[in-house]
Structure formats: structure tokens, C-alpha cells
């Protein structure tokens, strides 16, 4: 009786093992890269249905268990986690992680478009690194930032990206002009232009001379503290204050680097000049009796 029971038990175990052996299963590669072909192994017998749900993708395909399945690179061009489901006698679900390919494209935000010269940390650059299939490259990637202006030298920094983004703050150089701000990673690079303009006037100096019945006030070429000419059109204010309380104010625009104003001749007057918050020299004219 015991022997009969043992034989029956062995038969049941063999049938169960055979069932397990026939069950479907999927063998996935260790890693997959967007745009590259992938081969998936299957085990079991008979026909089944393969479903793939993933980023930008949904596939339903009839397959034969025990054979390999090929997925084309185009079907897996979007990076992310794909869910693979095989339904036959049993249902098997597996996850396939497809990583981004090599950096091929950068989305680069460079701000602002116009800055004064010689200011620290005034330019900011943010670079998002993508592969050729518009997947964010999440693996740390060195991103090189270059800021250069003609005759002003080049500032270079390399920043490793984190979760696909790298950012940097840079100061403007002391030379005015169109600065080239370039972000590059791998074979990809993007160029932006930041206009560096002269800062506030520095060391404002004027001189006076008489022309007929007028007093002509004229500045020396107006420059910022780095020696860059202040743009034409910048307002310079001349104020003449006489001893008897008379006051004349003239706002003159810089033309070809110089501001010039015509003031009335007043006895015993003081002429001052200013541009923005910068004060220039003071000149006394006339003479009291």
C-alpha cells in the first residue's frame, strides 16, 4: 500500500515538473540601449501572445514559446521602463529598462541676452542633454561651458550633468561685445550670444570754453571702469549754478563718445556734470567783483 502511494506521488510530481517545464518564461538582456536591437529569450512550449507596454510604444504579437524574439531598435527608441507580458498557459510579466543612447543634442538656456561688463555671476547657462531619440541622458555626462568675447579671452568650465541637466553661473568679462556662450557634451554643442555692454560711466571729466556769448561744456570720451566706451545715447547732465541763485540744467546725449552742452554765461558760476549715479568734476567759471 505504501509502495502504491509512493508511485502515485512520483507520478504526480513528474506531471507537475513537466507542467513547470512547459510554462512560459522570458529571459531579458542585462541592459538595453535606445535604438539598438534587443533579443529576448523565451522558454516553454506552444504559442503565446507577447504584449509590450512602454514609453511611446504598445505592441501585441503572437509568438512561439521556446524561440527567441527580436525587437528592432526603432521599436525601443524611447528610453524608460517597458513592461513585457507573455500570456499562454500562464502569464509572465517582466520589466525591461532601456537606457538613453549617447549624447547627441543639447537644449541650452542662456540668460540674460544682455549684461554689463565686469559683473560677477551675472550670466547663467542651463543645459539639458538628450540623445538622438529625444531621451534625457540620465547618466552623469560632462558638459563643457565656454564663454568668449573678441579680445576678451575665454572662460571654460566643465560641469557633470545630474539627471540629465547641468548648469553654471559665470561673470561677464571686462570687454564689451557679442560674447559666444557655448555648451557642449559629446558630439553635441549649442551656441548662444550674450551681448556684453559697457557698464556705468567711470571717472567723468569735463572741460569748459567760451564760444561767443555761450559757455560750452564738453566731456572727455566717456568710458566705464574697464575702459569700454559708454554707448551713444546715454544721458549726461550738466548743471550750472550761479552765486545769485540762477540754475541751468542741460541733459545731453553722448555722441561719438562725448557729451556736449551749451550753457548761458553767468557770473561766478559752478558747473557740475553727472551721468546716472556717477558724479564728474566741478569747474568754477567767471569771477566775482
Amino acid at each position, binding site marked *: 500500500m505504501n509502495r502504491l502511494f509512493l508511485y502515485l506521488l512520483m507520478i504526480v510530481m513528474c506531471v507537475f515538473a513537466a507542467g513547470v517545464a512547459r510554462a512560459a518564461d522570458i529571459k531579458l538582456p542585462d541592459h538595453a540601449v535606445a535604438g539598438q536591437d534587443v533579443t529576448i529569450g523565451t522558454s516553454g512550449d506552444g504559442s503565446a*501572445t507577447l*504584449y509590450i*507596454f*512602454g*514609453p*511611446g*510604444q*504598445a*505592441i*501585441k504579437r503572437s509568438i512561439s514559446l521556446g524561440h527567441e524574439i527580436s525587437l528592432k531598435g526603432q521599436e525601443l527608441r*524611447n*528610453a*524608460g*521602463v517597458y*513592461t513585457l*507580458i507573455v*500570456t499562454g498557459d500562464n*502569464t509572465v*510579466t517582466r*520589466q525591461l*529598462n532601456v537606457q538613453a543612447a549617447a549624447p547627441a543634442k543639447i537644449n541650452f*538656456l542662456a*540668460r*540674460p541676452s544682455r549684461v554689463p561688463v565686469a559683473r560677477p555671476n551675472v550670466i*547663467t547657462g*542651463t543645459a*539639458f542633454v*538628450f540623445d538622438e531619440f*529625444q*531621451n*534625457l541622458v*540620465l547618466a552623469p555626462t560632462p558638459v563643457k561651458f565656454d564663454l568668449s568675447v573678441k579680445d576678451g579671452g575665454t572662460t571654460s568650465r566643465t560641469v557633470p550633468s*545630474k*539627471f*540629465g*541637466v547641468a*548648469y553654471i*553661473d559665470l561673470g561677464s568679462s571686462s570687454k564689451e561685445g557679442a560674447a559666444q556662450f557655448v555648451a557642449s557634451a559629446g558630439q553635441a554643442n549649442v551656441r548662444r550670444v550674450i551681448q556684453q555692454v559697457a557698464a556705468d560711466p567711470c571717472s567723468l571729466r569735463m572741460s569748459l570754453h567760451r564760444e561767443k556769448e555761450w559757455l560750452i561744456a564738453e566731456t572727455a570720451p566717456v568710458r566705464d571702469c574697464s575702459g569700454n566706451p559708454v554707448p551713444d545715447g546715454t544721458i549726461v547732465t550738466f548743471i550750472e549754478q550761479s552765486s545769485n541763485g540762477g540754475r541751468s540744467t542741460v541733459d545731453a546725449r553722448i555722441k561719438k563718445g562725448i557729451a556736449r552742452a551749451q550753457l548761458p554765461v553767468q557770473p561766478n558760476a559752478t558747473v557740475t556734470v553727472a551721468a546716472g549715479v556717477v558724479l564728474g568734476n566741478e569747474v568754477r567759471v567767471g569771477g566775482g567783483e
Partner: protein
Amino acid sequence: MTATSRHAEYVLRIVLILTGLFLVLSGCLPLYHALAASPDDQIQVRMNAAQIAPRQLEEVVGRAIVQQYSRAWKNLETALDQNNTEVLGESFVGYAHDKLTAQVVAQKKAGLSMRYVDHGHQVDGILYSRDGSAVELRDTAQLEIQYLDGSKVVATENTPLHYVAVITLVDDRWKVRVLDSVPSF
């Protein structure tokens, strides 16, 4: 006052009262719908911006991002459930919009769909750009997902899922530009 003028006055009074009632109702109904909206219509998003850089996230901006990111997930789940791309434009732009649209089109073609039960998102702010136009988030989502072939559920998944999202300001609204799933952080 003649009978005719009394009658006219009466009719005018009725018309005015009905017009007033109509105006009140037209204002109250949308208010009722808003107040009575089931919590199930909204997806819970909790955001931690303690580590965000290089710019601090203002509170009002954070609230707007949470609200609009929650709305984006609602639209995503509706799109993949109903195979409807029309809801995507409200919340998605650029690469994320293109990929979701492609997925809906592929699902429709194969007769497939995905149904979500969304138990909420824990979101960490990673990046807030200096000019305030872009934010990057790390999202851990508690999702139950049913994969359907027609009306038949072929598999169910109930597991935390991880996403990296980049959202940008478009027309005064935060929209998802990148939404990439990752196995872990």
C-alpha cells in the same frame, strides 16, 4: 391704473424675477460642481523642494507646479485609458507630448489600453533654473496599472514607479516637457 397696465406690470415683474433666478443659477451651478468635485478626481502630489537649486522655489510657484503636475497625471491616465490624445495638449508639450501621443496611437492600433489607479506621487524638486522657466522633478508614484487587451485584463502591476520630469512655463502654465521612467533613483 388700468387693467391692461396692471397686467403688463405683472408680466414684467415675472420676467425680471425669472431673469434674476436664471443669472443666480448660472453662477451657482459651476460653483456647486467645483465644490462637489470628488477627491478621486484629483491626484495627490506632495512636493519636497528642500534640495532644489540653483534657485529657491517660491511658495506660490510651488503650489502652481503641484496643481498642474497633478492635472498632467490625470490627463495622462485618461489618455492611456481611453486612447484619447485630445487631453494631452493641456498638460504636455514637446518630447513628452510626442511620446504619449505615439503610445496612444500604438495602443489604439493594437486594441490595447492601460488603466491606472493612482495612489499619489512623492515629488522631489531637483532643479529650478535661474530664469524661473524650467523645473526638474524626481517622482515616485504609487500606481496600480491594469494592462488591457480590448476589455480583457492581461496583467496587473502594483508597484512604486519612478520618473524624471522636466516641466517648463508655456503660456503662463507649467507643462510637462520630459517624462522619462527609470527603474530607480
